[in-house]
C-alpha cells in the first residue's frame, strides 16, 4: 500500500537532497555534442577540399555533395545512438525526448542523403556534359561500392517516407518497425562507398581510422545495449506472466514474476518495453508503466485496454514468458524539488502515478493525486490511495460535455489544490490532457521546470 516503505534504500533518503543536477544539463550536453560533431565533420571536409573546387560549378557541386553526405552519415550515427538505450542518455534526456530528437534528426538525414545523391550526380553531369542516367551508369562502373551505396540511399528514402506523418498514420506499428529495421542494412550498404570512394578518407589514414572507429563504436553500443544487455537481463530474470487482473472498465493489471528483479533498479513512474512470448504479441514490444515497482519477485504493470494489442493482454495466460527492456523514463520522484507534489492522472495514467505516489510518500513528501476518468467504473486502482497525513486522493469523473465544465481548468484546479503554485506537478495521461494541465499549471503560477510529464510513444 501507499504507506509501505520501499525495500530499495536508494529510493528514499538520498533523493531528498535539493542540490540535484539541473535537469537540462544533460539535454544541453547531448545537443552540444551533436553540433560539435557536425562542425568537426565540416572541418574534415574543409581540410580535404581544395579551394579550387569552387572554381567551376561542377566541382563545387561535387564538393558540396560530399559535405552533405558526410553530415548525413554522421547524423545517422547520432540517431542510432539516441535510441540505442544508452543508460547515460536515458538518465540525462529521457526516452520520450530521445525518440522525439531521433524523429527530428531523421528528416534532416533523409533530406541530406537525397541532396548528396543529387549533388554528386549533378556535379559529375556538369563536368562530363552528360545526362543523369548516363552519369549514374558512369558512377556505377567507375566508383567502387557504388551499387550498394545507391541501394543504401534508397533504403534511407523508404524508411524516411514510412516515418513521415502522412504515411506513418496509415501503417501499423509492426509494418513500420520492420521497415525501420532496414536502416541497419542501409547504413551498412552506404558505409562501403564512404571508405572505398570517399575522397576525404581514401587519402588520409587518420581520418579513415577515425571514421571506421566512429562506426564501430556506434555499432558496439547498439549491439550491447539493444541486443546483448536485454538478452542477459532477461535470461537472468526469467520473467513470466503471474496473473492478469481486470482493475476497472478499460484497465487491466499484469503481474510478472521473475528472479532478482531489484537488479533492474526500476523506479516509480518508469516503464519497460514488454514483449509477450505468445502468438500475436511476439512481433512487437510495447511500452507499459509499472504501477508497483519490483518487490521480491513480483512487479505489476497496469495497462489501458485501448488498442488491439493491449486488449489481447487481458487474454494472456499465466506462465507466458515475457521479454523486457528497460527501465526507461524520467517521470521519477527525483525530479520533484519541493516538499509538496501534485500528481494528475488521466485514465490509465494512474498506473505510473500509483508507483510514483508510493515513492514520494515514502520519502516524506506531501502528495495530492487528481484522478481524471470518464466515469466512476473507470477509476482503476483508486482504493490503493489510502487517505493519510501525506496523501490526498481526489477522483474527478464525468465527460466535459456532460459536466458542462472542465474540472482541470484553472479556477477548478485552484479550488481543489489551493497551494498548487508551491507544488511540483506531474501529469500522466492522454497528450491533450497533458497539454491542458500544463497550461493550467502555468496559469496558476507553477514554474515551467516544476511541471513534469512524459509520453509513451515509440514512433
Amino acid at each position, binding site marked *: 500500500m501507499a504507506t509501505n516503505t520501499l525495500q530499495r534504500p536508494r529510493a528514499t533518503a538520498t533523493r531528498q537532497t535539493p542540490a540535484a543536477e539541473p535537469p537540462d544539463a544533460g539535454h544541453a550536453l547531448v545537443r552540444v555534442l551533436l553540433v560539435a560533431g*557536425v*562542425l568537426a565533420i*565540416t572541418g574534415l*571536409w*574543409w581540410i*580535404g*577540399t*581544395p*579551394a*579550387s*573546387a*569552387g*572554381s*567551376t560549378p*561542377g*566541382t*563545387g557541386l*561535387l*564538393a*558540396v555533395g560530399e*559535405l*552533405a553526405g558526410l*553530415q548525413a552519415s554522421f*547524423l545517422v550515427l547520432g540517431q542510432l545512438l539516441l535510441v540505442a538505450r544508452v543508460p547515460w542518455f536515458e538518465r540525462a534526456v529521457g526516452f*520520450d525526448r530521445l525518440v*522525439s530528437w531521433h*524523429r*527530428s*534528426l*531523421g*528528416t*534532416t538525414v533523409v*533530406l*541530406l542523403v537525397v541532396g548528396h545523391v543529387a549533388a554528386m550526380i549533378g556535379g559529375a553531369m556538369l*563536368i562530363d556534359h552528360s545526362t543523369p542516367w548516363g552519369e549514374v551508369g558512369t558512377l556505377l562502373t*567507375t*566508383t*567502387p561500392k557504388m551499387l550498394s551505396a545507391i541501394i543504401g540511399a534508397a533504403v534511407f528514402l523508404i524508411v524516411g517516407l514510412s516515418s513521415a506523418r502522412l504515411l506513418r498514420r496509415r501503417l501499423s506499428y509492426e509494418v513500420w518497425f520492420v521497415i525501420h529495421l532496414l536502416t541497419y542494412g542501409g547504413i551498412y550498404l552506404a558505409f562501403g562507398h564512404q571508405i*572505398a*570512394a*570517399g*575522397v*576525404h*578518407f*581514401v*587519402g*588520409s589514414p587518420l581520418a579513415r581510422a577515425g571514421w571506421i572507429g566512429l562506426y564501430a563504436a556506434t555499432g558496439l553500443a547498439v549491439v550491447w545495449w539493444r541486443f546483448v544487455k536485454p538478452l542477459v537481463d532477461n535470461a537472468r530474470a526469467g520473467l513470466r506472466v503471474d496473473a492478469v487482473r481486470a482493475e476497472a472498465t478499460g484497465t487491466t493489471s499484469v503481474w510478472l514474476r521473475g528472479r532478482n528483479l531489484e537488479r533492474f533498479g526500476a523506479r516509480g513512474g518508469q516503464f519497460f518495453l514488454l514483449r509477450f512470448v505468445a502468438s500475436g504479441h511476439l512481433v512487437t514490444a510495447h511500452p507499459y508503466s509499472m504501477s508497483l515497482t519490483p518487490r521480491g519477485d513480483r512487479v505489476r504493470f497496469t495497462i489501458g485496454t485501448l488498442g488491439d494489442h493491449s486488449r489481447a493482454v487481458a487474454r494472456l495466460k499465466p506462465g507466458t514468458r515475457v521479454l523486457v527492456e528497460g527501465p526507461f523514463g524520467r517521470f521519477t520522484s527525483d525530479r520533484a524539488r519541493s516538499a509538496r507534489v501534485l500528481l494528475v492522472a488521466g485514465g490509465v495514467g494512474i498506473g505510473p502515478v500509483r508507483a510514483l505516489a508510493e515513492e514520494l510518500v515514502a520519502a516524506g513528501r506531501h502528495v495530492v493525486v487528481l484522478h481524471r476518468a470518464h466515469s466512476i467504473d473507470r477509476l482503476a486502482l483508486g482504493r490503493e490511495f489510502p487517505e493519510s497525513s501525506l496523501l490526498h486522493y481526489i477522483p474527478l469523473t464525468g465527460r466535459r460535455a456532460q459536466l458542462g465544465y472542465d474540472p482541470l481548468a484553472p479556477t477548478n484546479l485552484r479550488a481543489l489544490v489551493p497551494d498548487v503554485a508551491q507544488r511540483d506537478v506531474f501529469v500522466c495521461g492522454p*497528450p491533450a490532457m497533458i497539454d491542458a494541465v500544463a497550461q493550467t499549471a502555468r496559469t496558476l503560477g507553477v514554474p515551467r521546470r516544476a511541471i513534469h510529464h512524459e*509520453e509513451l*510513444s515509440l*514512433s
Partner: protein
Amino acid sequence: MSTTPWRGTLLFAGSLATIAVAAVTRFAGATDAAQTGSASVAGGSSSGAVVAPGGTKAAPGAVGKAPAAAANGAVVIVGSTVQTRYGPVQVSVTFTAKKITAVQALQVPSGHQESVMINNYAAPILAQEAVAANSAKIDTVSGATFTSQAYKTSLQSAITQLG
C-alpha cells in the same frame, strides 16, 4: 507524438546553412588559387608533345611532329593534359615495338596533401595496369576515381597519336 513539428525543418535548415557557410568561405579563396593553378598549368603542354626517351621535354615547337624514335626502337609519347577537379593529369608513354613498356605520370593533382598521398599510390598501380593491358582499358583505382579517369584519357590520347 509530441515531437515539435518544426524542429526537423529547423535542423535541416541549420545543416544547410552550415554547408552553405562552409562552401562559401572555402571557395572564397578559389580565385587566388585558380590564378596560381592556371599559371602552372599554362607551363605544361595541353596536347600531345613528344619526348625522346630519357631526354628532356621537347620544345613547344615540337608539338605535332612525328614521335621521336630512339636507338633501341622505343618511342615516348606525351598524352594530352586532362583537367580533373583536383588538378591536371598528364602521362608520357614509352612504346617499344608498338607495345606499352612504361608509363610515367608527368602531372598528377598535387594541390593538397591528400591528393599527393592518393596519387603516390595510384600512379604506380595505373602504370602497371597500363603495361599489363597494353591499352587504356584499365581498372579504376579505388579512391582515385578522378585521377584514374583522367589517366586513362591521357593514356588513350598517347596511344592514338602513335597511330
